């Protein structure tokens, strides 16, 4: 215990133990927030924490620079980076806005960081970055890319070829230029470490025999999600290889609804062996016969994602879901209908998370009555006591329903309601939906994420500011009357981290009222609102620690011609706190004030 006796008086209170012991204790603290708190206790703990930190989460890649990250955490093994703002998912952010991975890989490689895991969301990834990544980190194990773009299957080939210890390659919802893959061939014969392989978002053909050989030599493979280029008989063969160890399966595409009897029999046989299967997804361009093929193992499923199963009729969806008694997570299209949701409510008592997506964007099926309404939502809230997260796209809603839902489910952590028609009122009373959402925020004391829609006045924001004490992320579209709405939110929601607003009448008064608030938040997005260039400039002047970005429609360049007109409304505003100042990689359509 020599170290203990050498401690300085100021730290003797905190450090009874040698550094190694403290570090060992810190190992049990996994959450990023807790580790951040630990590092603030004193200098000694800060230092110990720094060197022992293995996982780092960066919610905004422009809030910090890679060099500073590596200086602080030289021993990091796992990095999560997020780039573009959330509304980039809905085409509101230009493709070249930013969020480039390359500087990070470059710095990590130069800093000789022993990177093992990289998880990216909405970043621009290039084939060069992937190649550099694959060559720079010997122990690299896991690559997860969510909603990224900028790369091709050539980049995947580098990863396959060079990452000797690759365990996980998980591609979710990325825009990948498909050069019609021989990338699967690039996994060396010696590669036997794969645990998870997901290429469902790839649009092109793949080398089926290469895939089969890869799966055959991966005894640890637990998660396999294939793309639409894997036909029925190939899928059956793949599944037979690893049926007993498969936990998570994503199914590809079948050309028609009448598969060959022999292939289908093989599939059924393989499915019967999938005793460990808990999660099922895919089914794009697949008919219902193939879904019903999975009924034998449906009772084991905890997670089901049928949000791409656009070809399967509602009644078949209902029939399948009825058997999923242990389901905890369900993502489905609204073609299941209110009737289907009632079946879910009575069958899936373990349900925790539900997402219901729209299946018809054109209002043509209006008379068809297969979409979901407030009836389905109320049924779910009444039938599923463990429900805590919901994303619900629907054509209509009422205050009465929302009030009932709030009473039934006070445990919501995430509540996202999207009424497809902007500004739609309560369809029975024709009133705004302020009271309904007000009931939600009042009852759900643990609510962390909220998206509102329908006809809403400033009143709903008064409620949100008053009651949503734990709210961290709020999404607003086509709502509110005056600046007071936005002000109530900014003043009331103490834990607010991300605020994103579109097409709402909030302007400079709300934007500028409390500049210091933005230091407590990760970011603010405002598009098609009432803020002007002058207001944004004033904000940028008063808050040098913020990056205030204006994104223009006009491709011809920065806003020189508008310099004189400060009253000009800003099309898209994105601001975020940062410790590294203005970024240098912004494209011409982005002006940083």
């Amino acid at each position, binding site marked *: 215990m020599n170290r203990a006796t050498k401690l300085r008086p100021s730290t003797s209170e905190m450090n009874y133990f040698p550094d190694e012991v403290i570090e060992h204790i810190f190992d049990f603290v996994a959450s990023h927030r807790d580790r951040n708190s630990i590092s603030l206790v004193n200098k000694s703990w800060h230092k110990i924490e720094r060197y022992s930190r293995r996982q780092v989460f960066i919610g905004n890649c422009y809030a910090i620079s890679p060099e500073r990250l590596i200086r602080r955490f030289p021993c990091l093994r796992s990095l999560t980076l997020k780039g573009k703002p959330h509304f980039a998912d809905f085409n509101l952010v230009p493709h070249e806005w930013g969020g480039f991975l390359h500087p990070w890989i470059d710095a990590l490689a130069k800093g000789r960081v022993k990177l093992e895991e990289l998880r990216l969301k909405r970043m621009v990834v290039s084939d060069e970055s992937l190649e550099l990544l694959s060559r720079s980190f010997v122990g690299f194990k896991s690559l997860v890319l969510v909603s990224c773009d900028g790369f091709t299957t050539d980049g995947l080939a580098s990863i396959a070829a060079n990452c000797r210890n690759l365990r996980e390659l998980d591609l979710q919802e990325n825009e990948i230029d498909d050069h019609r893959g021989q990338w699967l061939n690039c996994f060396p014969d010696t590669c036997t470490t794969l645990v998870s392989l997901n290429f469902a978002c790839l649009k092109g053909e793949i080398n089926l025999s290469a895939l089969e050989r890869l799966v055959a030599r991966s005894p640890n493979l637990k998660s396999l999600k294939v793309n639409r280029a894997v036909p029925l008989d190939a899928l059956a063969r793949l599944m037979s290889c690893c049926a007993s160890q498969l936990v998570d399966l994503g199914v590809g595409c079948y050309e028609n609804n009448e598969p060959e009897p022999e292939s289908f029999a093989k599939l059924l046989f393989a499915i019967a062996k999938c005793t460990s299967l808990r999660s099922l997804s895919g089914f*794009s361009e697949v008919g219902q016969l193939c879904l019903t093929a999975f009924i034998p193992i449906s009772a084991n499923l905890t997670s089901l994602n049928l949000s791409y199963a656009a070809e399967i009729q509602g009644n078949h969806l209902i029939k399948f879901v009825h058997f999923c008694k242990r389901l905890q997570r369900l993502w489905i299209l609204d073609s299941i209908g209110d009737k289907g949701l009632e079946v879910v409510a009575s069958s899936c008592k373990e349900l925790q998370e539900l997402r219901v997506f729209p299946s018809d964007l054109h209002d043509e099926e209006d008379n068809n009555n297969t979409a979901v309404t407030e009836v389905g939502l109320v049924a779910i809230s009444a039938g599923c006591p463990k429900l805590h997260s919901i994303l619900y796209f629907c054509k209509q809603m009422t205050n009465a329903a929302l009030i009932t839902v709030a009473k039934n489910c006070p445990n919501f952590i995430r509540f996202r309601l999207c009424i497809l028609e902007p500004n739609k009122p309560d369809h029975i009373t024709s009133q705004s939906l302020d009271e309904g959402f007000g009931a939600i925020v009042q009852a759900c004391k643990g609510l962390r994420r909220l998206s509102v829609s329908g006809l809403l006045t400033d009143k709903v924001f008064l409620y949100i500011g008053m009651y949503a004490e734990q709210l961290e992320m709020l999404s607003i579209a086509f709502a509110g009357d005056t600046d007071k709405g936005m002000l109530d939110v900014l003043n009331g929601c103490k834990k607010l981290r991300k605020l994103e607003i579109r097409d709402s009448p909030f302007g400079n008064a709300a934007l500028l009222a409390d500049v210091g608030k933005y230091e407590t938040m990760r970011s603010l997005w405002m598009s098609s609102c009432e803020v002007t260039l002058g207001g944004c400039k004033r904000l940028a002047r008063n808050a040098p620690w913020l990056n205030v970005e204006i994104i223009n429609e006009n491709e011809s360049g920065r806003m020189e011609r508008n310099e004189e007109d400060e009253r000009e409304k800003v099309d898209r505003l994105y601001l975020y706190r940062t410790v590294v100042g203005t970024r240098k990689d912004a494209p011409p359509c982005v002006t940083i004030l």
Partner: protein
Amino acid sequence: MENSNSYSPYSSSSVDSTKPSPSESSVNLSLSLTFPSTSSQRETSQDWPPIKPRLRDTLKGLRLRQRGYHRALFVKVYMEGVPIGRKLDLSTFSSYESLLENLSHMFDTSVICGKRDIKHHVLTYQDKDGDWMMVGDIPWDMFLETVRRLKITRPERC
């Protein structure tokens, strides 16, 4: 399918005089969104409802298959001055308007057809005879039958 003789670049079935004119809609992609009045003929916008691109594409494809379009129709698209082109599946669009909106988005510039303009890029196509033509003169369905490739030109050339 109408084929009007008056100056109207679109001959698709959902022509609506209250909709924004081509140049307006291609400059401001969210224009249709600031008018939440629901015209049932309003073409889908790229940014509402808030769903991810993959789901949007899936639903587009579904709708077209339901309406009887089975075949994908990939054509090459070049922007004048840019050597590397893109490929686009025209069968996922139902009108000139949605095609223009998508192209404007894909190339991050405003793309229009028909009207000569100093500021905007104009869309042309090569038909099955090999001739280069202005997009927009013939009905959409007929266009799909004859188009072989697309080129986004600088206005002066037209």
